[in-house]
């Protein structure tokens, strides 16, 4: 499958194209990480993160490819792995305690919000994720999820978001994260 076809399919939010891309370059990308002191699991995580970055940019129509897809993903992999190595280096040399404290609070908040997201219905979750993370247009979401039009999606999105915020605020108040 040619790069142009893959990019076109991914930009429409076709997750099967992402699957094929993942399978196609798995060994090449993971070997690059492993050769740079990474473990098999680290290499896999980095490759998946890189593919998601690629996915996000392609779906949000922010990607203008000037090279092969493999070259682009490869460069993302190396950048992410470099950041990961820096993070590991900092963890081993700097103030671990304060970082852990910050991470713990952040993780607690994230956990609450995640639980709230799980309380939403499947469609609500998808609409919010597609809109806020994938940055898909309302029109694309309507086509992907089979809604009548973009306006319907806009209304649905508003209701879903309002419900999520209420859930989060309620749980935050219980945990004293809000005044």
């Amino acid at each position, binding site marked *: 499958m040619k790069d142009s076809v893959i990019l076109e399919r991914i930009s429409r939010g076709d*997750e099967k194209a*992402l*699957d094929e891309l*993942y*399978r196609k370059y*798995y*060994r090449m990308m*993971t*070997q690059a990480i492993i050769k740079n002191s990474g473990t*098999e699991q680290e290499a896999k995580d980095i490759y*998946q*993160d890189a*593919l*998601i970055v690629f*996915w996000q940019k392609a779906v949000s129509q922010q990607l203008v490819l000037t090279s092969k897809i493999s070259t682009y993903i490869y460069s993302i992999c190396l950048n992410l792995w470099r950041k990961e190595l820096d993070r590991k280096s900092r963890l081993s040399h700097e103030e671990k305690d304060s970082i852990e404290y910050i991470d713990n609070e952040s993780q607690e*908040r*994230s956990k609450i*919000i*995640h639980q709230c*997201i799980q309380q939403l219905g499947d469609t609500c*979750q998808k609409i*919010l*994720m597609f809109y*806020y*993370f*994938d*940055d898909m247009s309302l029109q694309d979401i309507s086509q992907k999820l089979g809604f009548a039009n973009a306006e319907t999606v806009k209304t649905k999105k508003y209701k879903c*978001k*309002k419900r*999520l*915020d*209420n859930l*989060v*605020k309620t749980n*935050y*108040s219980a945990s004293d994260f*809000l*005044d």
Partner: protein
Amino acid sequence: MNQRFIYSDKADLYLKGKLSGNERIDFEEKMQKDPLLQSEIKLQRDVYHALGEARKAGLKARLNQIPVDQSPWFAGAPFKIAAVVSAFVATSVVMYVTFTPSEEDVVYQVNLDEQGQQIYAESSAKINAPKPSTIAAIAEKSEMAVVQEPDESTFTASNDPVAQTEVRKIPTIQRPNVTADFSENDVQLDYSDFEVPQKQALQGSASMDSEVAIEKVVDKAYPFHYQFYNGKLFLHGDFQDAPYKIIALNTENGRTLFLEYAGYYYRIEEQEAISPLTSITDTSLVKELRRLSTAQ
């Protein structure tokens, strides 16, 4: 507990980073003045982040379901094919080195085509040629194991690979057909069809006959004649200018004499009458006499 909730498209656009420069500045100034808005945006940032993490987790879970080839590069299909080919080549080389007959075991087959040209090919199904040392030992024991008369058209023993057939004109010697259990009593020589080529006869019995007495006779009546009388050859004429030589050939019919003089050859009949010396015109005979003369 603060239940106030601020929700607007502008907040979404701000968090997505899609506000223009001026709109963004205005929105941030508003946040500075309104702690509730500031707190709300902070909350929304966490929600955005959590939604993103949830989406990533969903995508990762999907990717983890995809079967991928996690084997190392040398376990891939191209390497496997290359490995099989390499193994096959290595096996072939070993088989070739192990089972190719050595030069000592080379076997020969001789075929003659209709034009009398020798065509030789080696074949494992034909005659086994023993080692030269074996041949020598057997020949020594039995004096002569196999008699094969060499012919004018000669033989070629080829060491080329099996099944290669080619026409050769270089004369060489054919190896005799002998067996390991050869014994002296088995030798039966049959010379009934044996014919000695004429050349062999000439070669074997020719000699420069110095026993023939020669006397030169200055005789103007017979300027270039000869006479054989009382076992002595008389040459009539002037034979001072160039050396002469007598060549005697002993054949089944008796002795034949030839005179070589000034590059020409003359047949000498052992007769008493004075006869003229007439040069031999048979080129093959002249050629052979010249060869004998130079060989002596």
